C-alpha cells in the first residue's frame, strides 16, 4: 500500500482538535494536501518530529497529537522514541511509514531493514504497539485502533515506496506557526 493512501485513510479519524506533526519532505506535503489544515508541517529539522510531538503532547494534554514520520527521519531521531516512552503521554501517537528509503531525495536506501521494529517497539513497553505491512483491506481498522487507543501508541507500517506529484506547501513556516497557534488557542 502506498504512503499517501495511508495518510488519506486517516481523514475520517481526524477531528478539528487533533494535532498532526508531519516529517519534512513528502510526508509533510501529503499531510498538507490530504488532511484538515492547519497542522505542524515540518519542512526541515530532520530527526525531530517525535521530539516536537512530545512537546506538543505535554503542552496540550487535552488534544491528541499524531506524529507522522518516515523511516529515515525516525532513525535519525531514534533517541526521542525512548524519551517519549519514558514519559508516555496518553495523547501521543507515533505513526512510522517505512518505505526503507530516503524517498524525497530520490529513493536512496536507508538502514531500516536492519531493525526489527516489532521487537524494538515492544521493548519500549508502550501499551499499544503494532508493526505490520500496510494493507488496503485493514488500514481503516488498524488506524482506528491505533488512533483511538487511550494510551501512548506506536504504529509501524511498511509501505510501498511511491511518490505523488504534489505541489510544495505554499505556506512559509512563519505562516504555518501563525495558523497553527491560532487553531490551538481556540481548541485547547
Amino acid at each position, binding site marked *: 500500500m502506498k504512503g499517501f493512501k495511508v495518510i488519506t485513510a486517516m481523514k475520517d479519524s481526524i477531528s478539528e482538535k487533533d494535532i498532526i506533526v508531519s516529517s519534512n519532505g513528502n510526508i509533510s506535503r501529503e499531510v498538507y494536501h490530504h488532511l484538515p489544515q492547519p497542522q505542524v508541517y515540518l519542512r526541515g*529539522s530532520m530527526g*525531530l518530529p517525535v*521530539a*516536537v510531538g*512530545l*512537546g506538543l503532547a*505535554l503542552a496540550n494534554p487535552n488534544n491528541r497529537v499524531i506524529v507522522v514520520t518516515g523511516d529515515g527521519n525516525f532513525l535519525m531521531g531514534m533517541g526521542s522514541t525512548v*524519551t517519549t516512552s519514558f514519559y508516555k503521554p496518553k495523547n501521543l501517537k507515533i505513526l512510522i511509514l517505512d518505505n526503507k528509503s530516503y524517498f524525497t531525495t530520490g529513493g536512496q536506501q536507508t538502514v531500516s531493514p536492519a531493525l526489527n521494529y516489532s521487537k524494538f517497539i515492544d521493548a519500549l513497553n508502550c501499551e499499544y504497539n503494532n508493526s505490520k505491512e500496510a494493507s488496503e483491506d485493514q488500514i481503516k481498522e488498524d488506524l482506528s485502533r491505533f488512533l483511538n487507543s487511550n494510551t501512548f501508541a506506536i504504529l509501524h507500517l511498511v509501505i510501498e515506496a511511491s511518490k505523488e506529484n504534489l505541489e510544495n506547501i505554499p505556506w512559509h513556516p512563519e505562516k*504555518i*506557526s501563525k495558523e497553527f497557534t491560532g487553531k490551538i488557542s481556540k481548541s485547547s
Partner: protein
Amino acid sequence: MIDSAAFVSYLEKNFQFISGVPCTYFKKMLIYLAEHETELQLQHVIATREDEAMGIASGVAFSGKQAVVYMQNSGLGNVGDALTSLAQLYKLPMVLLISYRGLESDRAFPEHDIMGEVNEAVLKAFNIPYWILSEKNWETEMNLAVKEMKNSSSPVALLVKDGVLSE
C-alpha cells in the same frame, strides 16, 4: 553562586517547561529541580540530545507556551539544524541556557578548548542574541533575554560560566 531556589523560581514565573542535557555547571540547579519536581509549575523533560530538547521546546512554543533549553556548549555543536530550520525559521521563542566551558577553569579538560574559543562566534554566526549570566545582575540579564525572546519570537541564549549556577 546564584541561589538555586531564586533562579528556578524566576524560571517558573516565565516558563512552563524546561528540557535539556546536563552540564556540571548546572548541577545545583538540576538537583534543586529534581528535589522540588512535584511542587513546581515548571515541567522538566529529560532529553537524550540537545537538538531533541530544542524539538520539545519547539512543540511547547507552537502551543503558545515557553520552554528553557539547557545544554553544555558542546551541545551547541548539535543544534545547528534545530535552530535554522525549526526554531528560528518558524519563529519559536525559547531561552537556551548554555554552559560556557573551555575557559580558564577548564584547562584540565581539553575537550572543551575549541568550542570554548568559538562559542560566542558560533552564536553570532547563527544570529542568536546572547547575554553572559552574572551572579550580581542575573535578574536584569534574564529580563533582557526574556524580553528579546518575546519581541523577536525567536531563540535567545544565556551563557553560564563556571561557579555561576553551581559551585
